[in-house]
């Protein structure tokens, strides 16, 4: 089971490139796509889900070009788009039965699967209620259920935890980790903690380009010894923000605990602290933008 992306790019109207020269190779596991809004994550996911064709480059699923022969991939694909709708007159069971028919699943197997999926996403009690009356979070859970209907080999989920309450979010993260053992899961989000909890590999994207593709441990190693924390009085925080790029500031009884990623300690009493994935993410992003600015200057 292998997904290979070779120099994929997507150009939109007005000669705007949403994605450019994107390459990576992924085997079973959870790949977390991290990047700011508009980085190109959704474009990449739509290409991989065969909804959009790339302008340049190619993507292969087990050696088959997905733009030329999309149905091989589609048979084993589960896709949860960022924005999707449901048919408001159908209830949860009817909607999932419809999606099961579209995905080519046997009725008896689909019914069993739907029961277990509805239990999994905690919608069993409201299974007979029309979807038009569902809240945003409940619709999101229906979206998750339909993505898992056909027991996909490739599961692509775009901002899946949006609208979920904390309990459901943790539950879904665990499900992704569980699924990632024997299939490829691609998870796009800008919530670093979601990726931190589940991903076995991380791709950092900004302005349509792949900045880094590595295991979380590798990304953390890159900023090892470069994350500093020190305490400053509340009143001095605005001045400190002017001077340093503070990645996090937590108010405690003894003052504000400010955190920066830097080669050298920002102040003499700053302590080196273990890096988080958020530190690594910000460092890569800053490094990339800094080098681009440097090149432009």
């Amino acid at each position, binding site marked *: 089971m292998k997904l290979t992306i070779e120099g994929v790019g997507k150009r939109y109207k007005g000669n705007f490139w949403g994605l450019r020269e994107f390459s990576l190779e992924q085997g079973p596991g959870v790949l977390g796509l991290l990047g700011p809004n508009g980085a190109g994550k959704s474009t990449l996911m*739509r290409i991989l*889900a065969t*909804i*959009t*064709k790339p302008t340049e480059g190619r993507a292969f699923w087990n050696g088959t070009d997905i733009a030329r022969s999309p*149905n091989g991939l*589609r*048979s084993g*694909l589960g*896709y949860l*788009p960022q*924005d*999707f*709708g*449901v*048919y*408001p*007159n*159908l209830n949860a069971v*009817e909607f999932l*039965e*419809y*999606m099961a*028919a*579209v*995905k*080519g*699943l*046997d*009725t*008896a*197997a689909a019914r069993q*699967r739907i029961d*277990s999926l509805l239990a*999994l996403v*905690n919608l069993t*009690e*409201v299974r007979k*209620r*029309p979807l*038009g*009356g*569902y*809240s*945003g*979070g409940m619709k999101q859970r229906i*979206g998750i259920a*339909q993505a898992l209907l*056909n*027991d996909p080999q490739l599961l692509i989920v775009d901002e899946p935890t949006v609208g979920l*309450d*904390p*309990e459901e979010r*943790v*539950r879904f*993260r*665990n*499900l992704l980790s*569980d*699924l990632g053992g024997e299939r490829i899961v691609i998870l796009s989000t800008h919530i670093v903690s979601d990726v931190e909890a589940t991903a076995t590999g991380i791709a950092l994207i900004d302005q349509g380009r792949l900045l880094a593709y590595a295991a979380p441990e590798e990304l953390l190693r890159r900023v090892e010894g470069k994350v500093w924390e020190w305490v400053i009085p509340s009143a001095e925080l605005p001045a400190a923000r002017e001077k340093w790029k503070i990645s996090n500031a937590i108010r405690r009884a003894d003052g504000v605990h400010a955190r920066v990623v830097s080669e050298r300690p920002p102040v003499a009493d700053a302590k080196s602290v273990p890096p988080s994935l958020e530190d690594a993410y910000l460092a890569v992003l800053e490094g990339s933008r800094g080098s681009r600015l440097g090149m432009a200057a």
Partner: protein
Amino acid sequence: MSQARALYHLMRADFLERVRRYSFLITLGLAVWLGWAVSTGKLKLWISDSRGIYNSAWVGLLMAMVVNAFVSLAGFYVVKNTLERDRRTGVGQILATTPMSKTLYTLGKTLSNLAVLLAMVAVLAMMAVVAQWMAGEDTHIQLWPLLAPSLIFCVPAMALVAAFAVLFETIPFLKGGFGNVVWFFLFTASMPLGIKGTHDPIGLGLVRTQLKAAVQRAFGSATDGFVLGAIGNERQARTFRWEGMDWTREILLSRLTLLTIAFAITLLAALLFDRFDVSRSWGRRRSSSRDFVAASDRELVPARNGVVPEPVPVHLQPLPAESRRFRFFEMLHAELRLLLKGQRWWWYGIAAGLIVAGLLVPEEGRKIVLPLTWIWPVLLWSSLGTREARFATDGLVFSAAWPLRRQLPATWLAGFLLALVTGSGVGLRLAFTGDWPAAGAWLIGALFIPTFALALGVWSGSSKLFEVVYLFLWYIGPLNQTRPLDFMGAVPAAVQAGIPLVWLAATVALGITGVAGRWRQLAGR
């Protein structure tokens, strides 16, 4: 002052959002086509077998009447989507939280609708110049006689259409396809009444009186004959010189009254407008508020004491490989359920009544029963090919395997079965009586309708185009017994003339068009 500013920006933003869409270019294109039809003499205005020579006054009047007769009907469908867009994009939710009043909102939307309709009027007014030059009977352009009819007749009529479009969008049962059908019948039913009166929105009654007097002056006598539309070139009209309308106080007052009525309709729309409160529209009718609150409560489970709960082991059993077997019947069953879900008992009751009527009525009755049978499910057919775009399920459905080979045929077949079942009364009667040519025409009708719906739905992404075009076709063809447009075999003379074969060819062409449209949706993005 700030209210006026808010109103201006509300109207401006809405107008700009519309004119920057490709659909607006298509709308203007249609206006140009209508103007061209006048310029080339395909659309004419005759009174008592006479017409005016094509000077500025006559062309201006002709164009104004064309605008009011055709744009009033079609323009309604062009503009009846402004509240829906705010609802769909979520902008409405934001606007609802501002201090803006409901009256200001509906007024802004009416003015934006009016601006779009007046853009079409402006295009047609410019085309009037082209029409006058092309006719070459009097090429001297006089601005006031040319433009006054558009200004005095069209602006109030368009204001009325703009206000009605907003009103329909504020009434839950009129904001969808049913409202589109209602407007069609309201308009077509009111037109003959308008010609006889003086307060008709189109102005035909007012024009008719003065034109008849002019014909009487020119030829000594005049009949009541009055035609606005397509007249064959084989017929020749007497010509007279029309110097323009006498803009009497009565005319100006009646047009001002229409503007006042449009304003009153806008105020009524403000009263009915739900201010994007979901519980006042969807929730109240379709599900109980208790259910909705209960569902929402489940969503609001807080992190206990600010701590995210401990992870719970979650596992999903693998799906057996043999369960991955596509069965077309299951897909068809799912599509049929999607098509019919949400229909009330009385819908089925009326459909059943029409089936029985089709079985029992004699030959003559078929002319009425068959068209009625196949207008009843129009709102179901109009969903074919559009549901994926309308409900944003395209990402889910189109990422499944072979959507063109599996899902699209099932969608079409569901529509075809609906046509067969709803029209079964007439179909069975034709078979019992052995009228095979008519039965064949009936079958072609059943094939044509879902194919037509699917093709228009796939290409437009909206159910509105089919609803409107099908209504026109159904009204002019089968219902008014226009032979070439009888696509269902309701007119015996059309069946004898072999017209159904033309519709069979059209069905095949539309089928290819529909498949090409879906292929484009799947591959061309």
